[in-house]
């Protein structure tokens, strides 16, 4: 079994984000970056499959040399090898372009399963898994919270607003990871040292051009201060006069 995971370098969720000078992006200077948390679930799931089923694992990302930091972490967690689709300004790419990169790498690698996060926390489009599955003509399971591997197929649990579902899909399949799928491990020192010996293959892909882009980026307004009220009467008064919801 061959499993491919895609990860994206995103700003740390704990980082303080400011807009860039042109107001169309975030200021990327002095911001710590991490593997997109949902993609990290995908990495963990692939490593577990390697340990339990002997799966061959490959991690893919897109960007410049800076992205090797996240690829190395995935390798340190236990993924066998990495592929970096070179791009100097990957954060300007739209989801279709990133999706196309994954599709191109998948055509080369022919994985039985592609696992990736249900969304990336920096753009929230939820679109990569469906895009990739459609383009590759793979089965698709989104928002998986539990995966079980049978011969040549996968059984997945997913939570919906109506209740829990159990799906079964034959390989090849694209799975998007939801929170709860697993608890990603921290890389250990041995893994970190071993990752040094693993390869990061760099490839170039001609990406299609699209005519849409982000027009403006505005960070959320700062939270207002907390006001402590003495009693219920004051609360009701505040809700009527200040917040005006009563």
């Amino acid at each position, binding site marked *: 079994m061959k499993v491919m995971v895609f990860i994206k370098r995103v700003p740390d969720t704990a980082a303080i984000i400011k807009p860039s000078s042109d107001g169309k992006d975030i200021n990327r200077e002095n911001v710590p970056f991490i593997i997109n948390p949902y993609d990290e679930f995908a990495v963990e799931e692939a490593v577990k499959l390697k340990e339990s089923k002997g799966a061959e694992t490959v991690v893919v990302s897109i960007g410049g040399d800076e992205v090797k930091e996240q690829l190395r972490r995935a390798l340190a967690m236990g993924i066998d090898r990495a592929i970096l689709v070179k791009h100097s300004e990957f954060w300007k790419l739209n989801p279709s372009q990133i999706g196309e990169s994954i599709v191109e790498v998948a055509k080369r690698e022919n994985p039985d399963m592609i696992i990736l996060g249900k969304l990336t926390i920096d753009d929230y489009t939820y679109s990569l898994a469906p895009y990739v599955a459609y383009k590759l003509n793979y089965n698709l399971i989104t928002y998986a919270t539990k995966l079980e591997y049978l011969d040549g197929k996968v059984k997945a649990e997913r939570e919906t607003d109506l209740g829990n579902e159990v799906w079964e899909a034959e390989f090849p399949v694209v799975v998007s990871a939801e929170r709860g799928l697993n608890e990603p491990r*921290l*890389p250990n*020192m041995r893994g970190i*040292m071993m990752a040094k010996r693993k390869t990061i293959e760099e490839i170039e892909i001609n990406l299609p051009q699209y005519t849409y882009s982000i027009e403006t980026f505005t960070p959320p307004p700062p939270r207002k201060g907390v006001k402590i009220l003495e009693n219920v009467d004051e609360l009701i008064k505040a809700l009527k006069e200040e917040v005006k919801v009563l």
Partner: protein
Amino acid sequence: MLADFYLLDDELNEEERQIRDTLREFVKKEILPHIGDWWLQGKFPMHLIKKFAEMGLLGITAPEEYGGLNLSKRVYGIVARELEYADSGIRSFVSVQNSLVIYPILTYGSDEQKRRFIPKLISGEMIGCFGLTEPDSGSDPASMKTHAKKTKGGYILNGAKMWITNGSIADVAVVWAKDENGIIKGFLVEKGFEGFSTQELKTKISLRASITSELIFNDVFVPDENVLPYAEGLKAPLSCLTQARYGIAWGAVGCAMATFEEAVNYSKTRIAFGKPIASFQLIQEKLADMLTEITEAQLVAWRLAELMDSGRASFRHVSLAKRNNVRTAIEVARRARAILGANGTLAEYHSMRHLANLEAVETYEGTYEIHTLILGEYITGIEAFR
């Protein structure tokens, strides 16, 4: 990071940086939220031993053929610093396993002893401890009373060892005792050997998240194959202490960083006289002094790592670093506690716990005073020990 003012960590290579970052995540997630409670309860987190082993913390510099990582002393230093950022007791556990158990077996043990003990010590299946200090013999280890009498197939060991980290949970104790000719030898005393017992010291007001015990030997038969063949004389145990003291010099930097950061954060949010206390000159002076002292301690630790890794460090270099950095950490922690005011005395904060721990750290592995005399002897050529 505010406390790394001279950007020393920029010298780390990519893997070393990853090791540091991963350890920070580990400490933040697995230790910091609970350490105050463990400390108050006087409880060492046994469940972490397996995780330490998985992280690779129990055989950092040991050769790969025994399951070690064969990494540099610099990495060992970084590990000590990041662990002691959380608590000196946690770092002590890792120091003992690496420097006081694995190191002597690797350095003074037979191939058979190495094969038998080292892989299990690295995987955390076995815990070790180191017995040199005695109830009546601390700074003057040559005065030890524990003795070993040759008998058929081994030795009969009698005596007691005191202040032994991990003593009650150890599967193997590296014990130093005098033979009939008064020569100090190393013995690997295993849990379950007849006549060997331990007693945990429960009333410590320092290093409460660490196990400290007395080891008692009452006619304990130690077979010849458990005697370290290449250790003879006091130099052998002292060489182990040099390794452990090196880790302490780095660990103390971690303590100092932790209490400094706590003081900075607190001073910026605590309001007095209508403004954050960080805006007062007396607080700023304290913080400036703390940062300066931490920077000095870091420089000492970093240079010592270079000397250790290139084989140029003597025990005297290590003495200076242990002496200076632990004293620095105490002074930084004390000022941090003062900046936190009454809150500083609570276990919800870290400074007072570090301060209480550091009182023991300043005494163990060579007291401040003994290291002073080691340096005094180096400077003057005159020994002032006796």
